[in-house]
C-alpha cells in the first residue's frame, strides 16, 4: 500500500481541535490527523525505543518502531546504544528481519549484501566497480543506514527523537524523570533488566484513548466492577481469608472508592507528562517481601531506602506513548498502527539485586491486568472500542475532559499537584499534543503565501 499523504493542514487547523476543556473527535478518528501525528508529533517529541538490557552485548539489536517508522536499537562496537532507521539505503529492504538478535560487527542487507557498521556507516557494496563514475558518492544513499535525529539513554531507558533538530531531552521531560529514577532506584544495585518478551495486546481503537486511560481515575470502580468487584465478592463469600489470595492483593484495589482516588492526587509536568498516585496508590498496600527492605537499607541507608519505597506512584505517562509503573516495574508501550488500531506491549523488569519474589509479583500483575487473556484488560478494551465506534456518531462532535477544569487560564508550564480525579493530565496531554503537532507545521499565512506564488 502506498503511503498516504495527509490533507494539507495549517497549524491553526490542528490547534482548533483542542479547546481547553474539549477535544474534537477528529483527533481520534481522522486518518488525516493520524498521518500528521506520524509526521509531526512522533517526529518532534522524544519517544521510547527500548531498554538497554534488550541489547546487552555488542552487535545485539532489537527491531521496533517510533510512530510508523521502523527502527533498530543496536549496541555499537563502542558500547553505546544506537537507534537507526530500519531501512537499507539501497532499495529500502528492512535490515533487521528478526525482532531481535545479534548481528556481529556489521549489518548485512539480505537483498544485495550492502553492509554497514552497527552505527549505520556504509562498510562495503559488492561489485562496487559498477558504481564508478555514476555519482553514487554524491547521494544520500551512500551514507549508510540513517540514524535517528537524537538518542538518549536515561538510566537504561532508550529514548529517541526522529527529527534532527528540536527540543532537548531534558527540556522535554524535565521533572518527570523522577518516576524513572524511582523505578530504577528500587533495585538495590540501581539497575533494571528486561524479564522475557512483552505481552502484545491488539486494540481496535486510537492510541490516545489508551494513554488517557492511564490517568483516568473515575473508571476503575465502574468498568472493573465485573473483575475487581467480583473478586471482592468471592473473597467475602469465603469469609475474608488471610493471607489474601494474590488476586485480591492485585485486583481488589481497583474497586477502591472515589475518595481513595481523589485523595491519591495527580501530578502533572510540562509537555504532557504526569502521574497518578502522589500520596498513595493501588500499589501501596502490597505485602512486604522478606529480605527486600534489608537489601535496600544496605544499598542506600535506611532513610533513603524508606523514601524510595514509600513512593507509590501509580501510572506515570511519558507523553506521547508510554506509561510506567514504578512500584511494580512495568512499562506499557502504546504503538499506533492506524487511527483505529493500537498495539500495546507490556514489559516487565527485574530489580537487579532484589529477591525474586518481586519479579514474580510483577509477572503476575502483568498477566492479570495487561494480557489479552486478562479479565481486567477485557473491561478496558470493551470501553475503548465502544468509544472508537461511538465517536463516529453525528450526535456530537466534541469529547469532554472538563473534570476540575479551572478555566481558560489553565497553565501547564509548571509542575502541579491536584485532586486525583482531575482530568488535568488529559488536558495537559492534549496541550502538548497540539504543541508538538504544530512545532514544524506551516501557519495559515505561510500556506496562503505558498499558494500565491
Amino acid at each position: 500500500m502506498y503511503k498516504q499523504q495527509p490533507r494539507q493542514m495549517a497549524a491553526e487547523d490542528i490547534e482548533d481541535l483542542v479547546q481547553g476543556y474539549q477535544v474534537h473527535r477528529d483527533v481520534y478518528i481522522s486518518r488525516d490527523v493520524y498521518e500528521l501525528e506520524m509526521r509531526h508529533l512522533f517526529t518532534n517529541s522524544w519517544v521510547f525505543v527500548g531498554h538497554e538490557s534488550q541489547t546487552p552485548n555488542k552487535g545485539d539489536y532489537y527491531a521496533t518502531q517510533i510512530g510508523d517508522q521502523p527502527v533498530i536499537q543496536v549496541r555499537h562496537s563502542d558500547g553505546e546504544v544506537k537507534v537507526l532507521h530500519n531501512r537499507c539505503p539501497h532499495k529500502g529492504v528492512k535490515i533487521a528481519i528478526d525482532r531481535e538478535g545479534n548481528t556481529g560487527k556489521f549489518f548485512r542487507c539480505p537483498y544485495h549484501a550492502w553492509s554497514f557498521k552497527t552505527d549505520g556507516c556504509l562498510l562495503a557494496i559488492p561489485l562496487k566497480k559498477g558504481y564508478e563514475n555514476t555519482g553514487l558518492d554524491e547521494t544520500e544513499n551512500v551514507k549508510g543506514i540513517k540514524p535517528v535525529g537524537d538518542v538518549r539513554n536515561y538510566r537504561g531507558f532508550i529514548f529517541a527523537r526522529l527529527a534532527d533538530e528540536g527540543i532537548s531531552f531534558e527540556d522535554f521531560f524535565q521533572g518527570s524523570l523522577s518516576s524513572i529514577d524511582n523505578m530504577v532506584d528500587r533495585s538495590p544495585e540501581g539497575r533494571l533488566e528486561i524479564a522475557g518478551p512483552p505481552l502484545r495486546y491488539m486494540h481496535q481503537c486510537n492510541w490516545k484513548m489508551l494513554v488517557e486511560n492511564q490517568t483516568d481515575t473515575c473508571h476503575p470502580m465502574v468498568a472493573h466492577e465485573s473483575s475487581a468487584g467480583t473478586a471482592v465478592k468471592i473473597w467475602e463469600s469465603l469469609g475474608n481469608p488471610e493471607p489474601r489470595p494474590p488476586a485480591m492483593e492485585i485486583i481488589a484495589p481497583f474497586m477502591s472508592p472515589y475518595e481513595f482516588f481523589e485523595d491519591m492526587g495527580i501530578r502533572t509536568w510540562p509537555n504532557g507528562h504526569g502521574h497518578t498516585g502522589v500520596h498513595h496508590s493501588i500499589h501501596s498496600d502490597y505485602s512486604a517481601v522478606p529480605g527486600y527492605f534489608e537489601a535496600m537499607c544496605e544499598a542506600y541507608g535506611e532513610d533513603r531506602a524508606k523514601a524510595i519505597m514509600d513512593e507509590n506512584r501509580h501510572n506515570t505517562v511519558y507523553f506521547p506513548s508510554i506509561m510506567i509503573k514504578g512500584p511494580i516495574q512495568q512499562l506499557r508501550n502504546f504503538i499506533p498502527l492506524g487511527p483505529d488500531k493500537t498495539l500495546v506491549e507490556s514489559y516487565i523488569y527485574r530489580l537487579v539485586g532484589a529477591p525474586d519474589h518481586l519479579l514474580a509479583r510483577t509477572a503476575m500483575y502483568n498477566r492479570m491486568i495487561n494480557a489479552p487473556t486478562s479479565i481486567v484488560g477485557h473491561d478496558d478494551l470493551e470501553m475503548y472500542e465502544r468509544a472508537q465506534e461511538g465517536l463516529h456518531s453525528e450526535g456530537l462532535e466534541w469529547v469532554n475532559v472538563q473534570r476540575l477544569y479551572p478555566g481558560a487560564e489553565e497553565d501547564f508550564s509548571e509542575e502541579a499537584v491536584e485532586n486525583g480525579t482531575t482530568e488535568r493530565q488529559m488536558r495537559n496531554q492534549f496541550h502538548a499534543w497540539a504543541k508538538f503537532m504544530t512545532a514544524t507545521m506551516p501557519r495559515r499565512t505561510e500556506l496562503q503565501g505558498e499558494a500565491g506564488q
Partner: protein
Amino acid sequence: MLDEGRYDEWIDLWLADGHYWMPLDYKQTDPHLVTSFLYEDLFMLKLRVERLNGARTFSQKPKSRCHHVIQRPFIDRTDHENGEYVTNTSMHYIETRLDDQFLLALTATHELKQVDGKLRIANKRVDLLNCDAAFGNIQLLP
C-alpha cells in the same frame, strides 16, 4: 463442557491446588519469573467464571461463545499405582462474539489424578501455536 458454558461443573473437576497455565513463550519452562498469558489458581478461575455470569460484565454483552475441536488425546504418562496421568491433546479453539471470530491452534497438556474413584484435573497447560502473535480479547478458556 466449556463449549456449553457449564463452567461450574468444569471448576468442580479441578483439584484445589491446581493451576491453569498458558505460557507466552514457545517451550516456556517458568510460570513465575517471566510473563504468561495465564497462570491461574482456583481462586482466579472461579473469579473468571463468576465474572462471565455477572450483570455488569460489559465485555460479555452479548456473550462470547467457543468451540473446541479436539483430536484424540495421547497419554504421555501412566502411573496406575498413584492414579496419575498426563495427556496431550491437539485442538483447534474457536471463539466468537458479535462480528468477530478467531481460531487458535493449540496443544493442551492435562495432568490428571484419580481421587475417590474420580479423575480430576491437577494442572492444565495450554500452548498456543502462535503464542508470539498480538491478540485482541481472548475471553473464554481455550
